[in-house]
């Protein structure tokens, strides 16, 4: 993983500052929309760990997003747990374990099979939720109370407040970004880098690439769980739509739109896509038609996403500190088919 360039760090900090002051000026609707964007940003970022950094194109990432929502609802209803400090780690941990199991099956395959298998497994989650009466079937489940941040009678913040919830999800987004970067710059991240560039060579060097890919899948599942937790807590309801493959598809669109393999790209992509959806939905009832055409146009016209458009001039051409140009991204991996 490349170190961020100075201008980019400045830009990201400026964006962060903008997000911090945003709720002070924005209407209620836009504060909630902003929270929704943050949830999608975390979710898309977690997918970027797989798609951009590990070259595992998952079309079933919504499985962990939705699982987190259902986990929160069940913990609240059946176990009476309302504290943020118990439900959040439990939910994220559960998602990591689920991702470990799903990954153990899916990572046996690669390339195009991986895409189809992840999609099919996520669909299994979808039908399970949709057909299980205890989980509310197609109506889903209510999450009656927002997770409480109280510890020993002292509450540092109150998530029932919309603005507080906004800041909570912003903090989660920033923490996820930093945490994901930490994972990527670690030794583990270097091996993941190696696997993406040339898996047979990484294997020849003695790395059990399967184990590394599986670990990354679990990490991404945990981040997706964080996103799903916040998303479900915000909505106060979780339903099969959380698990639907359109949720996975939208995240993939966001990752590509923003520019994969950057972490901040998907965040920008989430803002761009949700803003676009909001505008398109206010224009016509058939706004999905516009979004679909937009996606097609992006793939055909901007192969490297919005990043190549907006930041390209500034970041793309910046040389690395050691003076070498960034390595070109392989167009197509060997042994893909």
């Amino acid at each position, binding site marked *: 993983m490349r170190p961020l360039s100075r201008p980019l760090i400045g830009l990201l900090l400026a964006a962060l500052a903008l997000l911090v002051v945003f709720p002070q000026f924005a209407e209620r609707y836009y504060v909630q929309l902003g929270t929704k964007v943050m949830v999608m940003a975390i979710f898309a970022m977690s997918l970027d760990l797989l798609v951009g950094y590990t070259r595992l194109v998952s079309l079933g990432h919504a499985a962990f997003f939705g699982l987190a929502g259902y986990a929160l609802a069940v913990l609240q209803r059946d176990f009476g747990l309302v504290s943020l400090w118990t439900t959040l780690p439990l939910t994220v941990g559960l998602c990591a374990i689920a991702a470990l199991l799903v990954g153990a099956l899916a990572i046996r395959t690669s390339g195009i099979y991986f895409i189809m298998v992840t999609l099919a497994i996520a*669909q*299994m989650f979808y039908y399970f939720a949709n057909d299980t009466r205890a989980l509310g079937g197609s109506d889903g489940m209510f999450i009656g109370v927002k997770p409480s941040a109280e510890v020993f009678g002292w509450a540092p913040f109150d998530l029932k407040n919309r603005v507080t919830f906004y800041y909570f999800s912003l903090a989660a987004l920033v923490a996820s970004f930093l945490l994901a970067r930490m994972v990527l710059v670690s030794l583990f991240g270097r091996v993941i880098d190696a696997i993406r560039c040339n898996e047979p060579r990484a294997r020849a060097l003695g790395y059990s690439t399967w184990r590394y890919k599986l670990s990354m899948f679990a990490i991404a599942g945990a981040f997706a769980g964080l996103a799903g937790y916040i998303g479900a807590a915000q909505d106060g309801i979780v339903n099969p739509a959380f698990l639907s493959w359109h949720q996975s*598809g939208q995240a993939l669109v966001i990752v590509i739109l923003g520019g994969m393999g950057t972490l901040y790209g998907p965040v920008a992509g989430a803002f761009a896509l949700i803003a676009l959806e909001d505008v398109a939905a206010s224009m016509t009832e058939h706004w999905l038609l516009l979004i679909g055409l937009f*996606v097609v146009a992006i793939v055909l016209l901007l192969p490297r996403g919005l990043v190549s458009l907006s930041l390209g001039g500034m970041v793309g051409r910046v040389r690395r500190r050691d003076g070498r140009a960034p390595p070109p991204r392989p167009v197509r991996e060997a042994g*893909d088919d």
Partner: protein
Amino acid sequence: MDVSTFLVQSLNSVQYGFLLFLVASGLTLIFGILGVINLAHGSFFMIGAYLAHWLTVKTGNLFIAIALGLPLSFLLGLVVERLAIGFLYARDHLYQVLLTYGLILVFNELQRILWGNDVHGVATPAGLSASIPLTEVQSYPVYRFFISVACIGVAGAMYLVIHGTKLGMLIRAGASNREMVELLGFGVKRLYAVVFALGAALTAFAGMLSAPVNSVYPGMGEHILIISFVVVVIGGLGSIQGAFIGAMLIGFVDTFGKVFVPEAASLSVYAFMAAVLLWRPQGLFGARPA
């Protein structure tokens, strides 16, 4: 389970399997030859079903509707290949997924604009609306037999085309080594367009045939798409034979899953896929990846 129930369920399984085969063989052909993963494949199923509905209302006969709908869907396939898919051959699967996902959104919205959100039924053609009594309480609709027979006909025709014509030769050659066919100077571009349109037409045909049985509703293409993925994963990608076996297996697993474990019916096919993956990750007929 008594014998006649078993018989009826088996017939249902086979009929469902044949329909799945039409869809999955299109998917597998397009992947095998064009190297494209086409998420919008299910949309052609939906388009076929809506064409059947719309043209049956206009002409009053499902057969005329199918006769008109087939060339229409073939043409639509050509147009989609020229305008979108054709730019994807050298691109990563990721972009193919994305673009065809965009196409799904486009097709779904177009369907809503043209035909609305209502569920439509399509009348079974007059000559085929009877049922064959099996016991006093059970009978089997003739139309379902017709579906199976029509699918066998198409599958047979496909076999003859693939193994007995020059187009078929090119298809087989293209599936095993695309670059070589190109180097030998054959018009690969046209071949690709034809194969894509054929795949689209096959799937649309399946949609038209199943319209009287399953009714016509928004989003119907997505369910069939994902099930076809399961079929192709089980059978092995790029193999027509694998698609056939996979489709039949899924037909039986799905139908009998509904009988034996109704509460987990929609899970059974995925559980089956998981089991196959544990055993043979490359599918039953897939070549072991290098």
